[in-house]
């Protein structure tokens, strides 16, 4: 199409559409009809639900069967994820393990690690948190100061990770740490370790967010010993690995569906009798979702073809985040003041309270635009 950006036309194959029917039936059966998710954050950590998804074979579904996976395509995974998100299903317990930690292990892990960690993930029993940001390292990930020092039989980790979602109730973290000097590129000397969040030397402290939730955490490592078997990939290869992990983190439909339940509640509110202005707004928002979906399916096709769609994923995330931020604002202005318990108002307010995070988590808007500009050859 044009330099560095290529969204090939891609259509979901028949088997993916057949699977969609099954997912919809599952959702209709398993999610109570009066269930009102406020956003993708709240009350989304439900191990019982994750285990049910595991029973369906819908976690780690693109992974090989010998690791508990289902050998399914990225298209099928796309369909499962978008159906769950559009329904507001409580999926956060297993989400990060399924989306990025598992694929990271699959790509860089040892055979023993794959056999040990992947099957419980696919059963919906083992949950992971992200260990990237730190108090002094946000967008500038190469500046991380958490350090792992080589000792007899393994490594000792010291430092602090920040914004680790659900670290207080998940099992493991993949932590990006410094194991050597940064070199001129600053990308050298980084490594990734699997850390047991319930192990010795790990303190997890929840941090309250502006919506009142306590989902993300500060995780402090004090002389935390990990064996050599906890190293992920190669010593010093952390930058390449974490970049690949970010590709998975940025590629999915969760980057434009965070506010979708507000749209659904708005459609419910206008019922079959929308004003011209309300119809126009619904149509405008729907046209954005339809387009973002098509782009996201195109990214899934690139993943399926074994390509690395890092720039395209950044672009879809950036567009999607801007969309999910403007959605509640536009619906707010198209709705009269409703009572405090009205589902549309609750949904709007909860989403608005979470919306600042949309363009920060997984790469800020500014970082993503830089990634896109690089893809265009501007830097």
């Amino acid at each position, binding site marked *: *199409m*044009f*330099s560095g*950006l290529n*969204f090939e*036309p891609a*259509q*979901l194959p028949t088997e993916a*559409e057949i699977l*969609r029917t099954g997912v*919809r039936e599952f959702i209709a059966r398993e999610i109570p009809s009066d269930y009102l998710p406020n956003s993708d954050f709240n009350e989304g950590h439900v191990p019982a639900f994750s285990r049910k998804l595991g029973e369906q074979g819908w976690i780690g579904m693109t992974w090989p069967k010998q690791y508990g996976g289902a050998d399914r395509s990225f298209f099928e995974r796309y369909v499962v994820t*978008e159906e769950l998100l*559009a*329904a507001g299903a409580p999926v956060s317990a297993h989400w990060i393990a399924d989306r990025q930690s598992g694929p990271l292990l699959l790509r860089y892990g040892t055979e023993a690690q794959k056999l040990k960690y992947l099957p419980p993930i696919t059963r919906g029993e083992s949950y992971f948190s992200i260990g990237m940001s730190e108090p002094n390292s946000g967008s500038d990930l190469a500046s991380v100061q958490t350090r792992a020092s080589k000792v007899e039989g393994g490594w000792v980790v010291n430092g602090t990770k920040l914004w680790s979602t659900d670290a207080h109730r998940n099992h493991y973290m993949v932590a990006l740490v410094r194991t050597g000097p940064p070199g001129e590129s600053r990308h050298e000397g980084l490594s990734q370790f699997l850390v047991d969040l319930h192990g010795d030397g790990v303190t997890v402290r929840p941090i309250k967010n502006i919506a009142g939730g306590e989902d993300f955490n500060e995780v402090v490592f004090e002389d935390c010993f990990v064996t050599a078997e906890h190293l992920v990939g190669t010593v010093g290869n952390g930058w390449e690995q974490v970049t690949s992990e970010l590709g998975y983190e940025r590629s999915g439909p969760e980057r434009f569906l965070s506010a*979708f339940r507000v*749209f*659904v*509640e708005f*459609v*419910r509110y*206008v*019922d*079959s*009798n*929308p004003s*011209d202005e*309300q*119809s*126009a*707004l*619904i*149509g*405008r928002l*729907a*046209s*954005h*979702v*339809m*387009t*973002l*979906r*098509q*782009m996201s399916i*195109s990214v899934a096709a690139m993943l399926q073809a074994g390509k690395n769609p890092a720039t*395209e994923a950044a*672009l879809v995330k*950036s*567009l999607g985040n801007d969309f999910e931020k403007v959605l509640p604002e536009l619906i707010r202005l198209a709705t009269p003041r409703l009572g405090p318990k009205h589902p549309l108002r609750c949904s709007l307010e909860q989403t608005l309270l979470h919306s600042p995070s949309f363009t920060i988590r997984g790469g800020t808007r*500014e970082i*993503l*635009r*830089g990634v*896109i*500009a690089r*893809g*265009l*050859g*501007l*830097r």
Partner: protein
Amino acid sequence: MMHDLILDTAERVFTDHCNKAVRDEAESGPADDQRGLFPEDLWAVVKEAGLHQVGGEESGSTLVDAFRVIRLAGKVALPMPFAEILVSNRFFQGEGLTTVAEGLVAPWARRAARVVTDDGQLVTEFDVVQGANLAGEPRDEIVFEEFESIELPPNFRAIMAMTRVASMCGGLEKLLELTIDYVGERKQFGRPISGFQAVQHNVARMAGEVAASIRASDAAIEAMDTNRFVLQVAAAKVRVGEAAGIVAEIAHQAHGAMGFTHEHELHQYTRRLWAWRDEYGHETEWQQLIGREVAAVGAERAWALISDCAS
């Protein structure tokens, strides 16, 4: 692939024979209210290459090919009623240049032998009140007494809207290319302005809008022979129309005062984008079509309507 061959030919012919001078000439005229001279030489080249028959049943190509070539025409701001010519060739064949009127206003009716209106009237005897859209493309009002009723293909308005979607995608691509080139060449404060983060972020935003537009357009084309065609065209017209304004604005901002001059070709694309988004229904018309459909199926089926595959 024959289809790729058509695209290769179109791209070569358009880039070799359509440039700023040709477009300037087509926009000129003896007086301010008589602007718009049909580019006969360019038309001869287009016919010679057979591009006026793309999408026609005898040519072995399809309407999908027609939309793809219309996009390429948009990318060179081809100064002729190319979309109308291809649509007419496919659906309303007859002697002489045929154009299509939206209401009573038809591109280049002054040069046409036949006009088909979008409510199914074929007109061969007509007077013309010359006019133009804001891009300086002739948009002539036709005045007539006699007409022949003809059958339009199903979803005709959506097909015509799709021609504007495809044209706009071509224009959007060109604006991105022009802008990337310009910010890489233009130096201020001792370096190319592409080195400034504010500029990079604007161009990145532009790229997002262009990528979204092309995807929306392709998705509509892919849905052509399905029951989702009108819905997908509606979404594409909405999405691309929105992108057109944003991309034109950023392109002009990046080009500075240089891009505001008539001498620079930038305006030949931005003015067309501003004009085309209003032709065959601006964003609001199509938004309402989608919105009413979503409201009619209701909240529980809204997602299914958005995500269902074509059949």
